[in-house]
């Protein structure tokens, strides 16, 4: 469990906590929060437009990030990364069951994925010509996934400004939900992709990060798996599968093989 160092850091920064209505003490995965706060922890001035450098952070309690070092591979500043973090937290919020997207490291997971084959559409057919097509014909955008994310997050910020005259990350949770819902209802104009398509991508990427093996940087300390009672990588269930009762098994990551 990663909540052994709670209280040793300042987690009260309203940017993160008010949005999901969570109590400070419930936060798990302090390295992520700490990473987002960076050197400005405890100060109130780190707005999404602040010139913070890449939020690197060392935390020996974390698994899944080599040597406990965290950093950004795709996003270029904290501002867009924080919008992503807040949006994913609304999709998968912290509650009494356990951590939300931020506590699970989902934003870092997505950042890493966007920098690689997923974000670059390496295994997708990306040859022209591009036409809009029917919904049943699926992905027809010339945009790569990482371009969709960058644009989508920009538009979230723009919507926050135009609807509420505030930064996205400073909105109340319900206000963020209103914007996310507008994306989901396809009411937002995006270039080269529909807002519904982007929303589905964001939602799925959030779930991927919550439940993928921690070797990818999300699902911190396997808390996603613990919430769901999924034991991760187990070699065999041949001795348990005939049990009449539900069997709880401490989860195991592939990373523990190395």
């Amino acid at each position, binding site marked *: 469990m990663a909540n052994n160092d709670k209280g040793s850091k300042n987690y009260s920064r309203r940017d993160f906590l008010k949005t999901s209505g969570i109590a400070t003490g419930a936060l798990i995965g302090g390295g992520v929060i700490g990473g987002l706060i960076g050197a400005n922890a405890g100060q109130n001035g780190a707005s999404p437009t602040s010139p913070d450098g890449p939020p690197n952070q060392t935390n020996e309690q974390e698994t899944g990030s080599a040597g406990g070092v965290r950093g950004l591979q795709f996003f270029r500043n904290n501002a867009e990364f924080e919008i992503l973090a807040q949006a994913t937290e609304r999709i998968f919020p912290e509650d009494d069951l356990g951590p939300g997207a931020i506590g699970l490291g989902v934003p870092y997971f997505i950042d890493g994925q966007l920098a690689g084959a997923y974000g670059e559409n390496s*295994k997708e057919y990306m040859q022209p010509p591009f036409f809009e097509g029917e919904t049943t014909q699926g992905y027809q955008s010339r945009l790569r996934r990482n371009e969709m994310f960058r644009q989508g997050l920009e538009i979230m910020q723009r919507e926050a400004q135009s609807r509420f005259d505030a930064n996205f990350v400073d909105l109340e949770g319900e206000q963020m939900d209103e914007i996310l819902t507008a994306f989901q209802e396809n009411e937002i104009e995006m270039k080269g992709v529909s807002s519904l398509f982007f929303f589905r991508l964001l939602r799925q990427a959030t779930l991927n990060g919550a439940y993928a093996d921690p070797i990818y940087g999300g699902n911190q300390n396997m808390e996603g798996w613990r919430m769901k009672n999924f034991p991760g990588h187990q070699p065999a269930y041949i001795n*348990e599968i005939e049990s009449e009762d539900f069997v709880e098994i401490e989860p195991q990551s592939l990373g523990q093989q190395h």
Partner: protein
Amino acid sequence: MVTTLDSVDVVTVGVGWTGGIIAAECAKQGLQVVGLERGRERGTEDFSIVHDEYRYAIRYELMQDLSRETITFRNSRDQRALPMRQMGSFLLGEHLGGAGTHWNGQTWRFLPYDFEIKTMTDEKYGPGKLPEEYTIQDWGITYDELEPYFDKFEKVAGISGEDANPFAGQRSSDYPTPPMKKTPLLQRFETATTNLGYSPFMLPSANLSEPYENPDGQQINACQYCGFCERFGCEYGAKTSPEITVVPAARETGNYNITFNANVVEVLKEGDRVTGVRYIDTVTFEEFIQPAEVVVLTSYVMNNAKLLMVSDIGEMYDPETGNGTLGKNYAYQILPGASGFFEEQMNTFMGAGALGMSIDDFNGDNFDHSDLDFIHGASFSMTQTGSRPIATNPVPPDTPSWGADFKRASIENYTRTLNVGGQGASMPHRDNYMTLDSTYRDIYGVPLLQLTYNFTDQDRALHSYLTERAAEIMQEMGAQTVVGGNPISDYDIVPYQTTHNTGGTIMGAEPETSVVNNYLQHWDYENLFVVGAGNFAHNGGYNPTGTVGALAYRCADGVIQYSQNGGSLV
């Protein structure tokens, strides 16, 4: 510059189940065989860290690289076909073993009714039970003729099962290994379907119940129920796959070589014979010609059809006139079913790809269709394949798809949900077919295959009737909430449905209505064979691999006979 290689007796295009079976049988007879595989070598040793849902099940590690080649798709002829830019509805395999590496191992024999569907439907219900735009036809072979080949495939694969399905065709011998464990979850299905008057039995499985040495001398291990089968390879060598059975059997003869990274782009021909194939090295893009006495197309449904089309072999199907056979009778599968939400937690994360119980009471013509507006049906199964957390987020109706309520409901129901699923037969329709795309190409410059497909009234009627039956079973199993599948509308290539695509290179009794004869020998080119689920004249109510395996053994017989005597085999 093209390099022409030394001629061989037999060349196969692709090395999965069909290519491996042809190779093993022909090489054992002393024929020199080359397998051209566009992917890489792979085997059990590559799967020691395979319990990775994200990499294998979500990001499709083992599947085809669509940046190189895909298909185009539209629902109907009045739409513009567009490329399938990312994988969704079905998952095309790649590398040694093909889809036979990442299958679940559910291994069925199609019903006797399937092979004579036209004759038997007309006899029982009179002609015109289905409107004439449904192009059902007999397969040119009967179940009894194919039975020895089913038997052979099951023995090579070591299938675990029980001869307890009252609707199955006659078997010449029992399953080679006993059925898998009948877990508490399967017993719920067994009790419920028995109470309803049906006849449950253990699903025939290629995840073996015990260690087994097959007739070729290859060892298959016992399944450990780890819950990572479909979309994964097996780290135990316990899920029968080509690379642990027929491929090593072929290699041990000394008469078999596989060339990897070899993407065939054309079947070469001269007069009424094919002379070999042309392929491109996927790494260097060098071109090679592999001459051969016999060419066997053993790749997936789509690619087999595409190679014939780009090589101008056979008459293209024309949906306007109904003439031509190549690309005709593309079919898929219809998936009626029901989910049940339960109060107690269950071990849904444990399992194996073919761990399940089934009933056939609503499959084929096992029930009376006189008052129904469809034919055929579905096998119903409850499988315990191992639910994984990214893909399995079941929520009751009216739950939002994100946010606090979604999180709570999806976590709670992950271990509290069971499904009864039907694999519904898919009848061919005049307007569902494959052809070549005129706009999009693969990276080798070859046109993409174009698929035109939509669900039909027959499909909707079958789905609606059988979804009600599935819901009744789930109710009887004691679910608190039962949710039947939504009615089907237009086919959507985005969400995963099933990799049971069929047709396009169908088999039959006459050259006017089929691409190959019942030895899977091409009607126009006697030294060309085309084998796979593309031979299915319609799709039945089961997974296809058992029937594909049987057809591959039939085809191997044909290749060997042809190599000895020449000429048409029928």
